[in-house]
């Protein structure tokens, strides 16, 4: 066994241990541990990705070299390390970009605990990306839920506590459904590891045995993870959650935590249930309908709100709708589009939350549109970051957000009624996106009616934030202009996902 094969396991264990270590340290040292952890883990994920790109493309790591049913497994193809890398990098960017606000928003005693929880979230996301065991997946879903809730609670603000409670209740509903779904599936198949479960599910579905319990189990798993990731109509926890946390926590929660759950759902659909069984169960059509509704109603809610953070949060609900619509379409092209949508949203949403927080700072913390009038003149980099994020979300060519929209439209052709539904929903959603993002852009760039004070001092006082905004902008444009290598990687990775176990 090559040493590289240990890397996925090392990233998970390193994250768990660094949480313990960070707890024993002082605030700034704990922060340093988190930065180092995310940097090192990004390199390790990159190592695994290159190892698979240049080698067989896929490996299974047996923990302690025990076979099923005692043993536990980790597997890595191309998609697993890619998305684990994405999660680590976005978390690092979000922490660096929001570092100043974390320091000012949190009480001294909670500062290091925030970073302890960040490390735990990272451990959970890495485990969700790599695990080959369904119950391990459940345990890390719960670890992710608890740590995410703690990130929300870190800001001792009444609204944050209320938001954390709502988030926790919705998350627990989702976890409960996932757990009972896993247990039902285990009781039918007798296995917990993905490859064995897959074989069992295929043979049972072909023979027609346990078809109803199997459909119920699939429905429970999908609905549980859909609630946790914020699919319409379960998206009402999003504005409170993303709108009241410290910006770095909002960026992490909206950018990567919801994507971690979605990636785990994709693993279940393609590696446990099997795509043919998933399509035959009829749940795919429900996801398609909810995805389409989410795309439209998420945007409508975003237009109706008067708070910039709530607007970005509702926009997340619409973007999550795109992902489920892609899953509902059920073709390889649609799945590649949804993988790109995950990438685009994970890169863009943190940028929007971090930029919006800085714009709001210029208005003494106010988040309503009237107070944010001409705020981009006070903070040029925040204005730039917000503009790029907004244009990317709208789907303007050259930005990363354009690519999945184009791919979704192309993937929709040849599906009869579904083609019209997708194209009309894409058109309506894009128009609505333009309405609410353009409204804020016009608002923040309106000519100032007062003296602009901070304009020339922003870079000196907020260097890290400005660098992160420029970096995110470069990545956004680079992926928007040069998307084909990533699409090729998704294509090859999806084949491995489907056919190699």
């Amino acid at each position, binding site marked *: 066994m090559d040493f590289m094969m240990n890397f996925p396991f090392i990233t998970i264990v390193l994250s768990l241990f660094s949480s313990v270590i960070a707890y024993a340290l002082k605030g700034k040292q704990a922060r340093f541990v988190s930065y180092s952890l995310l940097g090192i883990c990004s390199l390790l994920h990159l190592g695994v990705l290159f190892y698979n790109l240049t080698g067989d493309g896929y490996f299974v790591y047996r923990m302690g070299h025990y076979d099923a049913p005692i043993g536990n497994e980790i597997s890595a193809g191309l998609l697993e390390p890619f998305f684990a890398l994405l999660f680590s990098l976005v978390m690092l960017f979000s922490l660096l970009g929001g570092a100043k606000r974390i320091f000012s928003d949190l009480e001294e005693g909670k500062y290091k605990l925030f970073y302890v929880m960040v490390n735990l979230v990272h451990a959970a996301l890495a485990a969700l990306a790599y695990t080959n065991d369904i119950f391990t997946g459940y345990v890390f879903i719960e670890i992710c839920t608890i740590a995410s809730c703690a990130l929300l*609670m870190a800001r001792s603000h*009444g*609204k944050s506590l*209320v938001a954390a409670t709502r988030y926790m209740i919705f998350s627990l509903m989702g976890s409960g459904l996932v*757990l*009972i779904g896993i247990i039902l599936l285990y009781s039918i198949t007798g296995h917990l590891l993905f490859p064995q479960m897959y074989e069992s599910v295929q043979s049972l579905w072909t023979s027609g045995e346990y078809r109803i319990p199997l459909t119920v189990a699939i429905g429970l798993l999908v609905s549980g993870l859909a609630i946790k990731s914020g699919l319409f109509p379960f998206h009402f926890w999003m*504005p409170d959650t993303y709108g009241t946390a410290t910006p770095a926590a909002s960026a992490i929660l909206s950018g990567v935590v919801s994507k971690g759950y979605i990636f785990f759902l994709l693993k279940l659909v393609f590696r446990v249930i099997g795509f043919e069984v998933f399509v035959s169960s009829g749940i795919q059509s429900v996801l398609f309908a909810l995805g389409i509704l989410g795309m439209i109603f998420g945007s409508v809610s975003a237009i109706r709100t008067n708070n910039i953070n709530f607007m970005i949060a509702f926009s997340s609900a619409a973007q999550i709708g795109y992902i489920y619509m892609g899953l509902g379409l059920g073709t390889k092209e649609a799945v590649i589009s949804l993988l790109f949508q995950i990438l685009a949203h994970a890169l863009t949403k943190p940028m929007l939350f971090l930029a919006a927080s800085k714009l709001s700072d210029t208005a003494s913390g106010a988040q309503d549109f009237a107070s944010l009038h001409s705020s981009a003149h006070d903070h040029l980099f925040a204005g730039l970051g917000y503009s790029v994020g907004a244009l990317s979300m709208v789907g303007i060519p050259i930005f990363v957000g354009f690519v999945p929209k184009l791919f979704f439209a192309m993937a929709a052709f040849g599906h009869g009624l579904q083609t019209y539904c997708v194209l009309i929903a894409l058109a309506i959603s894009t128009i609505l996106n333009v309405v609410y993002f353009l409204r804020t852009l016009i608002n923040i760039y309106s000519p100032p009616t007062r003296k602009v004070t901070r304009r020339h001092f922003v870079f000196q006082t907020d260097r890290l934030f400005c660098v992160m905004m420029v970096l995110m902008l470069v990545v956004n444009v680079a992926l928007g202009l040069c998307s084909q290598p990533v699409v090729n990687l998704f294509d090859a990775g999806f084949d491995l996902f489907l056919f190699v176990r």
Partner: protein
Amino acid sequence: MNLLHNYEELVAMILFAIGFTMLVFSRNLIKKIMGLNIMDTGVFLFLASMGYVAGKETPIVPPTGQVEAGDYINLIPSGLVLTGIVVSVSVSALMLALTVQLYKRYHTLNLDEIYLKAYGGEK
């Protein structure tokens, strides 16, 4: 007849449904946490009954050291129940901590009232 034969699973499902309903519809935070625990208990009962094989022993190796796998009940569900209990306790503790914080701040356990006090018609 089947339902009577599988009465443990039936009770587990009823418990899960009661707990889930309490978690979703009760406005009182403590009742929500109770619902969460009832829901989890339903799942654990389902798991435990699934792993139980009538007439078989607890999966603990005797002092003589002689082990015959067929003599024992299925040990995997027992392991899952233990893991699930740890998760459930952690989640309950966090929810209780949140409830204490909210009660100290808003002097009520009703989620609607807490929400009104926190936001005051802001949205």
